């Protein structure tokens, strides 16, 4: 890492995002979806933070809220040490140049009426970067960088396969030379054979352009491969954060253990005890009191039903559970 770890590239503090649930003739707010509930983390320059969890746990909302695509309900977002939570107008547009996103579905994330050139060039155009000819050259250059033939310049998205479309998506995000990219399940919608190509491309681009990633996925093995640190989310909260190696070797939270046990392995000696969680994820409109995981937790005790556990640090490994004993700190 080039900069000291005291200055993270991106930091979010106590970020909350609630979506109002409206009902009836007058669209009265009858409740809130607690999509992201008090999430804090920091990403160091050059680092890849993996964010895993089941669908509906709020991972995508975290990614979009920290890019200011959703307005946060509360909490703050800091980019390069600056509070950008309430930035608007041209200051927000400047911020957009530094933070980009790649979406999950390569079919809905590209405008079907625009050519590849139009799609990749748009960022440059609206930020008034370069002349027309310079922009064209830049687009061609980026297409080559993401592994696409520059003769595809005037083709439309529907003429490409899923993998190629995802490369166009990456090219669009890369055009503005951002420092930070949110990768929102960038490979989940692709064929397995294409997934590895895209993962390798992302890793290669990261080195070449000194990028910092927030890698959102539900695929634990991919996250382990690409991430330096991994955060596990459950029902809008982070339940465990650790370096990739630590988390996979020594998962502390019962939810993480259950998640990891569900990863199939071809090596019989590496197979873990399968932990099957009972029931479904509770509704985020009305999350359970106490520890949010307690209704499904195999080791829950009385205290879990009433007291929400704090996120405690145990040698660089943070976990939110009453039952994880730590040296000195934590425990219940």
């Amino acid at each position: 890492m080039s900069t000291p770890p005291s200055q993270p590239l991106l930091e979010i503090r106590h970020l909350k995002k609630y979506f109002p649930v409206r009902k009836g003739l007058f669209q009265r707010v009858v409740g809130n979806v607690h999509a992201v509930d008090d999430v804090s983390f920091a990403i160091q320059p050059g680092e890849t933070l993996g964010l895993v969890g089941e669908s509906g746990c709020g991972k995508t909302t975290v990614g979009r809220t920290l890019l200011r695509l959703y307005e946060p309900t509360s909490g703050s977002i800091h980019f390069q040490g600056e509070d950008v939570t309430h930035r608007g107008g041209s200051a927000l547009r400047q911020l957009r140049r530094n933070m980009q996103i790649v979406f999950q579905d390569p079919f809905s994330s590209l405008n079907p009426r625009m050519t590849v050139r139009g799609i990749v060039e748009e960022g440059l155009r609206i930020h008034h970067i370069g002349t027309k000819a310079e922009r064209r050259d830049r687009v061609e250059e980026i297409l080559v960088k993401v592994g696409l033939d520059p003769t595809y310049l005037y083709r439309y998205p529907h003429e490409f396969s899923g993998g190629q479309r995802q490369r166009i998506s990456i090219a669009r995000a890369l055009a503005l030379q951002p420092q930070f990219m949110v990768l929102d399940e960038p490979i989940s919608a692709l064929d397995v054979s294409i997934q590895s190509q895209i993962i390798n491309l992302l890793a290669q681009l990261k080195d070449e352009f000194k990028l910092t990633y927030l890698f959102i996925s539900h695929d634990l093995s991919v996250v382990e491969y690409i991430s330096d640190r991994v955060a596990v989310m459950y029902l809008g909260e982070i339940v465990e954060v650790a370096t990739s190696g630590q988390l996979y070797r020594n998962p502390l939270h019962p939810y993480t253990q259950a998640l990891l046990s569900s990863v199939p392995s071809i090596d019989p000696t590496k197979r873990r005890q399968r932990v099957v969680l009972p029931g479904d994820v509770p509704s985020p409109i009305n999350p359970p009191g106490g520890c949010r995981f307690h209704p499904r937790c195999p080791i829950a005790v009385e205290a879990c039903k009433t007291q929400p556990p704090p996120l405690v640090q145990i040698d660089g490994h943070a976990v939110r559970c009453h039952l994880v004993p730590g040296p000195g700190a934590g425990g219940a």
Partner: protein
Amino acid sequence: MAPADRQSDPGAASVPAPRVPVKGRGYWQETWLRFRRRRLPMAALCFVALLGLIAVLSPCLAGTKPIVCRYKGRLYFPATSYFNPRWENPIFMKDRFYKIYPKNLKKKDPESWAVWPVLYADPYRRIRDGEWDNRKGDEIYAEPNERNLFGTNQAGVDVLAQMIHGTRIALLVGFVSTGVAAVIGILLGAMAGYFGGLIDMLVSRVIELVMCVPAIILILTLLAILDKPTIWHMMAMLGMTGWTGIARLTRGEFLKLRQAEFVTAARALGVGWMRIILRHILPNALAPVLVPISFGIASAILTEAGLSLLGFGAPPPNPSWGTLLNSGKQNLQMWWLILFPGIAIFLTVLSYNLIGEGLQESTDPRLREAGK
């Protein structure tokens, strides 16, 4: 469905990769290719194109004024005065010319020559004896005969000539009124769908309000208020009452597309709302909106014909198809006054409906996937 991921090995493409960028087929090009394969909508489109041609060339097809003539040493184009009476050169109005060209051109200038329309007939007046060589004058209420293929009306005016010149009004009513409706509908629908909230609430209520008032009653009321209602007033009214369906559909499309990932991606790039609406949402919302526009043209033509039939349409000298029906309804024995304009209205409305249906089928993504 999707071609193999070729970029993993770009050198090994089966065809030698072209070095110049290849232009891909855009959405509208693909839609056109699909539309072209449909026989009935395609025939309907040809019919409408033919009507357009007839409308533009109407003074050359039927008229009593030369298309081109040389008179007293200069060239004139008197036939254009069918589009605008002011375009007729004043020279043809003095010296007892009386706009009777065939007789007077020769009489006043033996050197003159002229190119005549296909049919010597006028949509505005009766042809008198001896106007054109030995052609006999037309009678009133003449049955279809060799001089008047579709007969004449109560004033002895040729029905075919009126129908040919009426094409102009029929097409104009369709396009202008639906154009007005499309502009209002797309604008309001886009605002309601994109901004939502209070704007959406207000626009939706206005839509419901306008839908509740029967268009024909509103038009009749407004035509009654106006001193001198013209066909343009009627078109404007038809447009101002016919936009609700378009607005609703546009609103729905915008509501849906506002959430699309490519719109989120554009916002992430820092694209402003104006550009998002115009470049990202509108081009994608337009295809479904085109279908009600096509149906709207049909219903506008029908409404205009209906109003003219009731006597509230284009003022009498205007040769609208509906006005012809109106003159026929007084005496049903004059079947040619009903039958021919009726067929014309029917075919035109049917054509627009067929085009609308064809558009629906060729722009619908589900049908597109099935066709592949």
